[in-house]
């Protein structure tokens, strides 16, 4: 459905995308996961024919994003990172406008957007600029879906949105997947990775890993421990100073820790922490989440850059 081969793109001296290769098959939810400035928007803009790659090529639905761009623009749906609808038009006027751009009507494909649109329909005569963040998203998604595209590109649809609205948004995406629609979505939120079928972790224009979320997690190098003690603030520093510590990261209420040795000598670490005044020490081996993998991969990327 989407095929990206050796794409490079620079802005001046900044390498925004560095040899990107991705294949996405039909009906997949593919997540492009990385922080701001990693190159997510640039890649999505290349796929939506809005930017030209420096080198490399990409096909969406077997159409080349450079040469067949006119034909391709009929096919896909696109929801840019910034809310890009007309704020001075009402909800229904925006939707009608996009329906007529694609030569269709709201009624024709209503079934596709019904679940999403009916939540904002009570406000259909309200100007889009007066909607809340969550509702703007729903409208933007409705507009991107109105022509029944087989593939949609969503650039950071959940950025700046609270966790509840985010959850609802992902439920809508699952529903669209049910109609066989291929979804290419980018996000800076690592916890959304598990909602995708496959993901690419991107940082500084490099794809650090690309696979199903489970496989990426299983490739985590070494054992991961969650550590907690009664002295929350000092723990981070003390763990870092532990001689065999490899990585130490704050992680919500716990600290995630990996050791240089294959097997962590728990007793040794407990004694060390007690010596530094900690009490109620808990050390638990846990399964990593995507964010752990991302942190580890970022470390590798940095090491590689220094060599």
């Amino acid at each position: 459905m989407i095929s990206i081969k050796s794409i490079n793109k620079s802005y001046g001296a900044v390498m925004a995308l560095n040899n990107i290769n991705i294949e996405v098959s039909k009906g997949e939810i593919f997540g492009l996961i990385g922080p701001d400035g990693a190159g997510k928007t640039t890649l999505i803009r290349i796929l939506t024919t809005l930017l030209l790659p420096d080198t490399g090529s990409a096909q969406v639905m077997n159409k080349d994003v450079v040469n067949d761009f006119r034909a391709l623009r009929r096919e896909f749906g696109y929801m840019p990172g910034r809310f890009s609808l007309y704020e001075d038009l009402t909800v229904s006027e925006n939707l009608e406008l996009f329906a007529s751009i694609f030569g269709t009507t709201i009624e024709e494909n209503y079934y596709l957007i019904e679940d999403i649109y009916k939540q904002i329909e009570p406000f259909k005569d309200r100007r889009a600029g007066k909607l809340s963040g969550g509702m703007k998203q729903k409208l933007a998604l409705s507009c991107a879906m109105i022509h029944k595209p087989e593939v949609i590109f969503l650039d950071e649809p959940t950025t700046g949105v609270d966790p509840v609205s985010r959850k609802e948004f992902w439920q809508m995406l699952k529903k669209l997947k049910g109609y066989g629609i291929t979804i290419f979505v980018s996000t800076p939120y690592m916890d959304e990775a598990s909602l995708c079928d496959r993901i690419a972790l991107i940082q500084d224009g490099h794809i650090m890993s690309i696979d199903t979320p489970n496989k990426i997690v299983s490739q985590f190098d070494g054992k991961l421990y969650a550590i907690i003690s009664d002295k929350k603030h000092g723990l981070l520093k003390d763990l870092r100073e532990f001689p065999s510590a490899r990585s130490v990261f704050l992680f919500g209420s716990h600290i995630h820790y990996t050791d240089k040795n294959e097997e962590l000598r728990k007793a040794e670490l407990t004694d060390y922490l007690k010596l530094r005044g900690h009490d109620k020490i808990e050390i638990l081996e846990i399964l990593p989440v995507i964010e752990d993998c991302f942190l580890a991969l970022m470390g590798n990327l940095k090491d590689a850059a220094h060599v």
Partner: protein
Amino acid sequence: MSNEFSIEVHELTKKFGDFTAVNEISFNTKKGEIFGFLGANGAGKSTAMKMLCGLLSPTGGMAKVAGFDIYKEREKVKSRIGYMSQKFSLYQDLTARENIRFYAGIYGMPDKEIKLKTSELLDRLHLHDFADVQIHSLPLGWKQKLAFSVAVFHNPEIVFLDEPTGGVDPVTRREFWEMITQTAQAGTTIFVTTHYMDEAEYCDRISIMVDGRIEALGSPEELKRNFGARSMDEVFIQLARPTADKIG
């Protein structure tokens, strides 16, 4: 300050016409506390924050920030606080040094102190080599760390952070929170909003706003216990779910 509270809020209310954006909220923050201010989009967080920063007049209730009344002593309030948001923080076309100089100047710091502290700050952030390039060419993570440093440069009693880590990479996000923790340990109260629920765990206490009211207030552990939840994410969703789609 005569008492231990850096922010005291009692039944603070803001109405826009017949819409109540902030509905009789009350809380106190202690000196050096990291206070997480959570809520869904449109729950009234930014309105409340604007009132506390002296940018918006309340329609009811009372609030003191750094010991000053937000009705009568707005200018004093403003001189005792720092502010940083994801959207606006630094002038992109000024260099790091110029930005520091500018903000320090606003708060009337003496030149000598500015020079000394600027050098210290650049050391701490490893920014010496980039001190004289325009901000827009720096990576986002650096910018946000610099913006935070600038916001606390004049040693405010309270610093307000509005989604300071949005879109920042996981490593920098953690470095950022270490800076926050250090600043708090030095006695500055941190008042922070975020959509990352793991960051809520780093706060000493959290309030969750729903439809203009504070529906939950306490330490992360207390809240999780009270709501029988394993993570802050669950707490948040339990609270905010039924009304998440209100407009604000």
